[in-house]
């Protein structure tokens, strides 16, 4: 197990260093997410007031689209100079490589989320931080779940044709529970009289989703990546 953590940390550190050098995916994804927020606010604001509860939907949908973009771009780069096969050649547990890549994407999406939540809070003056722990917990669990399934599909699609269009086609039907739980959990937090029990239930559901699909992804990464 220590070996898996060591390798995962190594891959994560490499991804952070590579990303910090070019910051290409970070800037493009953050800008894309902000433009999503703008577009949605035009759609959901009527006579100055946002439609009741639209804010949580906007946050999560902007997050999902930005995540999908980041996933596609991150693996595109690995494919470009065949680096992914270089990693698969290493004499290590291949699931550890998956874990390292996943953590890199979760970190990236976390940065994007900070910006998205800031803008939504600004535009709609929503009390996101009335219950900060639950809210951050929902976001974190949702991101890990979404990025977990997304990273596996993106890695797997790396060698398939028309992968850019296939990623969302595969990703959204599977991650529907995360989006439902995320949106409704956040809604329960920011509505007039926040319903904490409901929010906790949704958080528990996302954590269950994470547990199931991360183990499944960790387990199937090896057979899916061998041609």
């Amino acid at each position: 197990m220590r070996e898996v953590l060591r390798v995962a940390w190594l891959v994560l550190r490499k991804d952070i260093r590579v990303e910090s050098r070019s910051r290409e995916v970070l800037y493009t994804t953050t800008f894309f997410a902000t433009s999503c927020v703008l577009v949605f606010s035009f759609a959901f604001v009527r006579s100055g007031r946002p439609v009741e509860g639209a804010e949580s939907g906007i946050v999560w949908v902007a997050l999902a689209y930005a995540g999908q973009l980041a996933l596609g771009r991150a693996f595109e780069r690995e494919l470009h100079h065949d680096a992914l096969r270089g990693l698969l050649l290493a004499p290590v547990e291949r699931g550890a490589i998956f874990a390292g890549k996943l953590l890199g994407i979760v970190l990236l999406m976390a940065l994007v989320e900070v910006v998205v939540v800031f803008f939504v809070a600004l535009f709609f003056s929503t009390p996101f931080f009335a219950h900060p722990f639950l809210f951050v917990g929902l976001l974190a669990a949702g991101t890990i779940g979404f990025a977990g399934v997304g990273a596996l599909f993106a890695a797997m699609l790396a060698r398939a044709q028309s992968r850019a269009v296939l990623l969302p086609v595969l990703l959204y039907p599977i991650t529907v529970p995360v989006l439902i739980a995320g949106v409704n959990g956040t809604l329960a937090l920011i509505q007039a009289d926040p319903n904490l029990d409901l929010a906790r239930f949704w958080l528990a559901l996302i954590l269950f989703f994470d547990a199931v699909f991360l183990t499944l992804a960790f387990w199937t990464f090896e057979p899916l990546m061998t041609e």
Partner: protein
Amino acid sequence: MPSTSPSGSFDFERLTVRGVSRHYGRQRALSRVSLVAGAGEIIGLLGPNGAGKSTLLGVLATLIAPSRGRVLYGDRPARELGAALRRRLGYLSHDLQLYPELTAGENLEFFARLYGDTRPAERVAAALLQAHLTDRAGDRVSGFSRGMRQRLALERSLLHGPRLVLLDEPFTGLDERSVGDFVDRLRGLRAAGCIVLLATHDLDIVDGLLDRAVVLRAGRTVPLGDAGGSLRERYRAAVADDVTARSLRRGTARTPGGSVGGRSELPGDDWRARTPSDA
């Protein structure tokens, strides 16, 4: 070189490839390729683009599973060995597998640690020296010429002292001096007892270097005559023979109504393929 690897638990002296075929859907990438390579040998894989050289190297590097046939490392298949085998494999792919955003030193350090070396400084320095890139250690690979990247990528694939070294078109983009260094480096590997497989177009460069050569055409091995003359001449002769042999065989089979082996052709005559339910 190979014996000094950190935890060289598994090692092998011989690589055996028996009847390996690989198909992608209906295209056939490799068809019944067989070869044997022993320690201290440099074997050339010659052939036009798309002949299956890269696929064969991919199969030997355990990245691609053969559809049929077996590959034995020593006397054990890759499936049994897993990570221990990968520790003894070095693969220089056509796309070099380097991170342009990282510096030369960082690239080597990452892969050294990935292969299990917790204090890679000394090993990285030696590799940089070998690649004549010691002064460029801190520069990003994105600023490097093709030749410099090629040298760096070769050292990266040899960092962990592999037994089997697979090189895919290593000479592309190298200037005269780098080619000379590269050939010396390969001779050093041979002396150290490595098994080297080299896929290339540059017949003249490898003419004196190869112990043996295998010609691949459309996924099939073609016998290379060992009559005198340069490698290029023998290669051209082998390809010419193959072209005639295939058209002969293809010719008899296709003539409409022509008999196969002298018998009149009945519909489905002596078709022995079995139905799927019995297969």
